[in-house]
């Protein structure tokens, strides 16, 4: 319990620093924000008034505090392009991103466990070597290019799956099942792309974890009690190996989320990532800053969850 409280408390300064960095980026952006919101035919007086309204005449420190207060109230400013509320723009995109990220993460976890276990248990076998080589490949292939290749192959050449987007718009009034199936079709390629990269990283760690664990005394003792190899692998070794994976998953969250942003962009998946990357090109700084804040917050929360999960599962921490 104390452990969890400690982790939560540590996360708070992290978030604060994050907001400061995001704010800095906003401030560093070239161009006068006031000009961004208006057309040039407005008089100079009105510009000064607008600047005052937006609080730009105050010292930076105060601006930061005001900005922070606004953020906490949910006011993240307005898009330079659409003039829509940043908060609203991002939150309406959040479900799509969460759908993609959470499904991919679940898939990664589910797939890495059997792969790592069998590769580790049968060290040096054909399966193990194949897994190792494929993991290396997965780490080395540029994710965005993989996405492109998938589009080339499955959509353009084979015409099996749609190239981009979330759902066929003509299906808006169709039944839930049909919609879900169509969304799934659209999600398949981006999911696969994320999966390969994430799997590559985790499986290597998992495999070496299993190899180390299988040399431990308690495994030998379990064998000496007549337990079958299957039981030893999938119960005794597995739980011990799964623990570090949780930590590693937490550590690779920034990479995974960053990567999924690019993938959203490539596949035109209407998530927060696509919004953010487009905002970068459009120089839409408020949206950009909002995206940074949201994604960083997501990552920090994800790490926190991972820490809590770890502490919950590992009895050595839970009971001390």
């Amino acid at each position, binding site marked *: 319990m104390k452990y969890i409280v400690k982790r939560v408390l540590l996360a708070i300064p992290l978030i604060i620093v994050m907001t400061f960095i995001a704010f800095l980026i906003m401030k560093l952006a070239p161009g006068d924000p006031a000009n961004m919101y208006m057309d040039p035919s407005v008089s100079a007086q009105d510009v000064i008034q607008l600047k005052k309204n937006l609080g730009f005449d105050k010292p930076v420190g105060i601006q930061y505090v005001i900005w922070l207060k606004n953020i906490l109230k949910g006011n993240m400013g307005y898009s330079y392009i659409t003039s829509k509320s940043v908060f609203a723009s991002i939150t309406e995109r959040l479900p799509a991103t969460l759908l993609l990220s959470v499904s991919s993460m679940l898939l990664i976890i589910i797939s890495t466990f059997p792969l790592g276990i069998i590769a580790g248990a049968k060290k040096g076998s054909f399966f193990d070597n194949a897994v190792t080589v494929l993991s290396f490949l997965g780490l080395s292939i540029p994710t965005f290019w993989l996405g492109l290749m998938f589009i080339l192959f499955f959509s353009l050449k084979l015409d099996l799956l749609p190239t981009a987007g979330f759902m066929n718009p003509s299906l808006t009034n169709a039944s839930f099942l049909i919609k879900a199936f169509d969304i799934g079709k659209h999600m398949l390629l981006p999911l696969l792309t994320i999966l390969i990269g994430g799997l590559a990283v985790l499986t290597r760690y998992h495999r070496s974890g299993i190899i180390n664990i299988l040399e*431990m*005394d*308690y495994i*030998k*003792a*379990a*064998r*000496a*009690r*007549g*337990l*079958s190899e299957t039981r030893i692998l999938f119960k*005794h070794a597995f*739980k*011990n190996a799964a*623990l570090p994976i949780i930590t590693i998953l937490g550590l690779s969250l920034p990479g995974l989320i960053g990567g999924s942003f690019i993938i959203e962009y490539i596949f035109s998946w209407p998530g927060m990532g696509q919004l953010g990357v487009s905002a970068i090109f459009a120089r839409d700084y408020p949206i950009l800053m909002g995206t940074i804040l949201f994604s960083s917050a997501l990552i920090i929360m994800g790490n926190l969850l991972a820490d809590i999960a770890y502490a919950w*599962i*590992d*009895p*050595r921490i839970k*009971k*001390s």
Partner: protein
Amino acid sequence: MLKVKNLKTVFKVGDKSTVAVDGISFDVPKKSIVGIVGESGSGKSVTALSILDLLPNNGKVENGQIIYQDQNLQNLTKKEMQKIRGSEIGLIFQNPLASLNPVFSIGNQMIETILLHQDVNKKEAKALAIELLKKVNIPDPEHRINDYPHQFSLGMCQRIMIALTLSMKPTLLIADEPTASLDVTIQAQILDLLMKIKDEFDMSILIISHDLGVIAQFCDYIVVMYLGKIVEKGVPKEIFSNPQHPYTKALISAIPKPDPSAKTPVSLLRGDVPSTMNVPKGCHFHPRCPNVMPECSALIPTLEKVKNGSEVACLLYQIYPSEVVSNAKADD
């Protein structure tokens, strides 16, 4: 009940092979306690692993028979051997805390084992586990059964291991350095416990240790090993009062005696135990032997009975000529 004949176990290290156990033979009769004593590199732990087919991937039993109750364990399939492990022959290790899976409660591990070996349901298994914990003197077993290994002391972990093994009701218990990582007072408790369960459960025990003091306390028969070979076998009384082999003599005299007035001559051995990669030619012990003779570097001694009833493998006592260098056969 257990007859080991000419056991030879080798390990592959890189492209070389080393012989860890070089043709040893001994018996463990019913309801007796046999002790194997030797220093590191003697091959005593490897013997235990060989019996139960628990050698690591680079180890192999190259020769010999392991007869358990008229069955040669070497001829069994993997599945049959798995059935033997635990329910017929149990094995406990040196480091008791490391022998327990840290992420499962001891209750979980005990119940798992019980369910595997006995035809009971979960509730009965739990009750049995609590009973066994009581038997090995774990206080408050009803609650502690839900605790995790790290919450117990080393001594208690070893008791839990013993309880785990008992739950399978083996007829032979192999204890590999059961007290090596424990404090002396706890050692005594564990050994005492082992004695108790031996009588109560009608088991035989094969105890392996480098500590002669531990062996001396309760073995019916002692086997002394050096660098993969048996150098002397006999009953404790004779081994301790009339050690025959120069190595045994050195071991005995190295036991610290708490009596300041008794100044017994300490037989000091030269050098260190060689690594198993560089086993000396001829008698494995000859480079360090205070009574070494020229022929010791060429001939491998075989075990023979001597006057006091022990068996010794030493050219000092050799009556029959032995064969040169490799291929020594031990007569039984």
